């Protein structure tokens, strides 16, 4: 059940109508949310009904243990168990085919068959779940005694497919808050975000994907260098609109149920350098990697190790996105770039005035990010090298980029760099509008999607991870 499908919105509307009358009883409210979470998982595969409750219950028990035991050895053992459990799940259900393939390649034997991969990437589940036990281990949070709240938080359906990765402890706090109410302004913002997310996904991301990006990446040899370059830029925009569109729908859905999720994007292609980019792109993942991986690596006081740790962190972050060498290369590229940027900043001093104007730094940051996206988008290294090879041909025709495509690209660029103030004014205007105006605006959006966008929307890119 994709977050852009009509099925999802029927499910969400039904849940909204059931949840609020029941939420006056805390347990009933949580129970209906938990039911909805597992219902959502079951739509992808019934096996999740076994896997997710089992994993979450074990983490809950580990959490109780971390709350009770103070001896460092025991706490280390408990947190190690949680790491083993969640990373084990991730390995078993996501990375085994990749590991087998590489083993087979090295050993020169046929790759053993592995049938335990599932349609829904459980990377988000595993990372979100780990926030609970890791926070408890570091004493950054207190354990909950409510299994119901814990199960509901770890499997909260808006964050299941592609984040934002939210600290379980924060979610539990919100679930356990008494006298929850939906502020009418928050309700309006939720609907606005859902509408905006659909617009981003179906009218921009899917249009770019279908009319240029997929074609260029399928057969780069059929396009000129200029068209391939436009295709790569278009992919950068597609990915942003796809993922931030998903995030808007997820945040809006949660807000309809009175739960606030963290922001995930902040004009990433306006970043002045690569470190800045990662403070603006997939913020919840960047924070996770920083808080739980980078800070855990040894050698903080060493002169060289922090740079190596950056590369290690980003390489593992790349691998987290998918079991393929493409993602490893993508992660290494970002890790090395971040290490260089950090080294440069340390050498120059944090407060030194940059030599170059801001637009220049942003321009080159975007070029680097787009180059790295080639590895992220390509299905394998051969395809990535074909794209790069074709870029190097230096042919300039742009006949395959149609007029409407240029217009959508221009809208996408303008939409990304739109200042926050007019956007917020638009949102607050929607929030203040009477209910029937809100309904009419949403209806207009649905009609636009029906008649302009390609029907049969593609899955959100990040749900694959």
């Amino acid at each position, binding site marked *: 059940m994709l977050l852009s499908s009509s099925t999802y919105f029927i499910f969400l509307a039904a849940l909204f*109508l059931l949840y609020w009358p029941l939420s006056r009883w805390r347990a009933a409210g949580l129970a209906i949310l938990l039911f909805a979470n597992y219902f959502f998982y079951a739509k992808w595969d019934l096996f999740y009904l076994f896997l997710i409750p089992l994993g979450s219950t074990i983490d809950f028990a580990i959490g109780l243990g971390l709350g009770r035991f103070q001896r460092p050895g025991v706490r280390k053992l408990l947190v190690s168990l949680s790491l083993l459990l969640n990373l084990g799940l991730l390995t078993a259900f996501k990375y085994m085919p990749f590991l087998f393939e590489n083993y087979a390649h090295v050993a020169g034997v046929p790759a053993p068959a592995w049938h335990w991969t599932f349609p829904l990437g459980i990377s988000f589940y595993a990372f979100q779940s780990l926030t609970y036990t890791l926070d408890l281990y570091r004493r950054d949070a207190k354990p909950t005694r409510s299994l119901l709240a814990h199960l509901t938080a770890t499997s909260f359906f808006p964050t299941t497919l592609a984040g934002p990765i939210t600290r379980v402890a924060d979610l539990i706090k919100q679930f356990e808050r008494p006298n929850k109410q939906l502020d009418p302004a928050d309700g309006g913002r939720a609907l606005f975000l859902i509408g905006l997310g659909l617009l981003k996904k179906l009218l921009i991301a899917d249009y770019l994907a279908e009319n240029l990006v997929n074609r260029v990446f399928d057969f780069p040899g059929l396009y000129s260098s200029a068209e391939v370059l436009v295709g790569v830029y278009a992919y950068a925009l597609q990915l942003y609109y796809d993922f931030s569109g998903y995030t808007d729908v997820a945040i809006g859905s949660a807000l309809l149920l009175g739960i606030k999720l963290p922001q995930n994007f902040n004009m990433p292609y306006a970043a002045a350098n690569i470190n800045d980019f990662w403070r603006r792109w997939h913020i919840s993942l960047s924070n996770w990697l920083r808080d739980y991986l980078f800070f855990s690596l040894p050698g903080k006081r060493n002169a060289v190790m922090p740079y190596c740790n950056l590369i290690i962190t980003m390489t593992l972050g790349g691998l987290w996105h998918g079991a393929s060498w493409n993602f490893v290369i993508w992660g290494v590229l970002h890790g090395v770039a971040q290490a260089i940027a950090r080294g440069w900043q340390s050498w120059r001093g944090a407060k030194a005035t940059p030599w170059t104007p801001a637009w220049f730094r942003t321009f080159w940051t975007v070029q680097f990010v787009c180059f790295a996206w080639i590895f992220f988008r390509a299905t394998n290294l051969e395809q990535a090298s074909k794209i790069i090879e074709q870029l190097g*041909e230096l042919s300039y025709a742009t006949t395959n980029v149609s007029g409407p495509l240029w217009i959508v690209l221009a809208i996408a660029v303008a939409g990304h760099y739109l200042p926050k103030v007019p956007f917020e004014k638009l949102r607050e205007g929607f929030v203040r509008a009477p209910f029937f105006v809100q309904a009419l605006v949403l209806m207009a959006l649905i009609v636009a999607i029906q008649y302009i966008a390609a029907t049969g929307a593609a899955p959100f890119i990040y749900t694959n991870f």
Partner: protein
Amino acid sequence: MPLPRKVTFTLLSLGLLITAPDLIPVLKDYHVFDWTSVAKVVDFQPRVRSANPVEEEQQRLKPEISVEKTPVRPLVDPKGALEPLYAALFATERKEAGAITRILHYGDSPTTADLITADVRSLFQKDFGDAGHGFALVAKPWAWYGHRGLDIKGSGWKIEPANTAELKDGLFGLGAVSFRGGAGAQSRIVLKDPTHSEVEVSFLSQPDGGSFGVFADGNPLEIVETESPVVTPSFKKLKLPDGAREIRIANVTGRVRLYGLRFGKDTAGVEYNSLGVNGAYISILARMVDEQHWGDQLQHHRPNLVIINYGTNESVYAKFVDTAFERELLRTIARVKKAVPQAAILIMSPMDRGQKMDDGSIGTVPALSRLVAIEQRVAAEQGCAFFNTFEAMGGPGTMGRWYQTEPRLVGADFIHPMPNGARIVGNLLYKSLQEGYRRHKLRIAREKFATIKESNSTPAN
């Protein structure tokens, strides 16, 4: 806690607006809601992903029911137009000395990338023997160009495909692409299979023509002069040393004009030549190449079968399909017949070509069916065989279906097959030709049997 009032009212109003076209007859043409979505909410059927989409599609297209009783529908050859091919295959199969069956496959972008043709080539060569790679262009006119088993790299050439050339003399060789080069122009072709015994370079001899050198694994084979008092297509066949893998061809003096290299073997077998031009349409053979020059090229290669496989690029120009396509096809057939009257001709229809329909589904370009019908009718009238690729794949809507398989069988342009999709089409063509050949052999056997029976039953004088 009561329902949040404003959001509830918004949602209910939106629900009413969405369902209005289903409730109010005058709005019935403006449906925005699919009621089956409601049932889908509680549908827990897992998404079925095929582990073997290629094999399953092949099985679906060619169910293994008795071939004896089922005519192979996509191949239409009521008048035995393919007899010259079958006769050649018969000799090749019996490994008669020098029995090489030569097939020239002309087509557009899939052929350029050696998609489909590479699969058919390998199937033929597996069953009948490998007579070599056949013709390859001197360098890559398009990044998309390829020939399976050859790694081609060239530099310094002025490359002119017939459909986009500044040159209007029509002298584009067998592959419809000309390569002009002066100092520094060279190409390097690496063969995966080192058992080829000869290479033949085709070029243009002309006044003031320069010379080029051919090298095998770094050793010079010959310096070839292209100067001649008259402009004429020429060919230089050279023996390759045993195990040669890297062939280099380079300009030596002056300027030369080359067309391609043909890689051959001494053994009986099939040589399947892939002759594609990106963006090609039927007029490339009907008009853009010089009739005499192209005819000389065809005669030199002595094909047993010429496949004319166009239509994809034309199919989006409905007016061209309805008014000019037939004329251009007839003209092309006439040129082939005049040049190589002994060769069989197979008109191969284009694959399905998809486009987004108003309802969002992927349908077939409207003029495609008409174009295929024209090809079939012309083939019948001209005594050519016809292969209906479009119907063999599954007819209208195939591109939509193939796009939705995982992994996809066609690209996102709904035109070009992915390697797996090409393999299916190649198999369909090969199986049809193989079945035609099997029938040919059966008929020969029957005729022989009848002759023997007749001679046995005739009383001796």
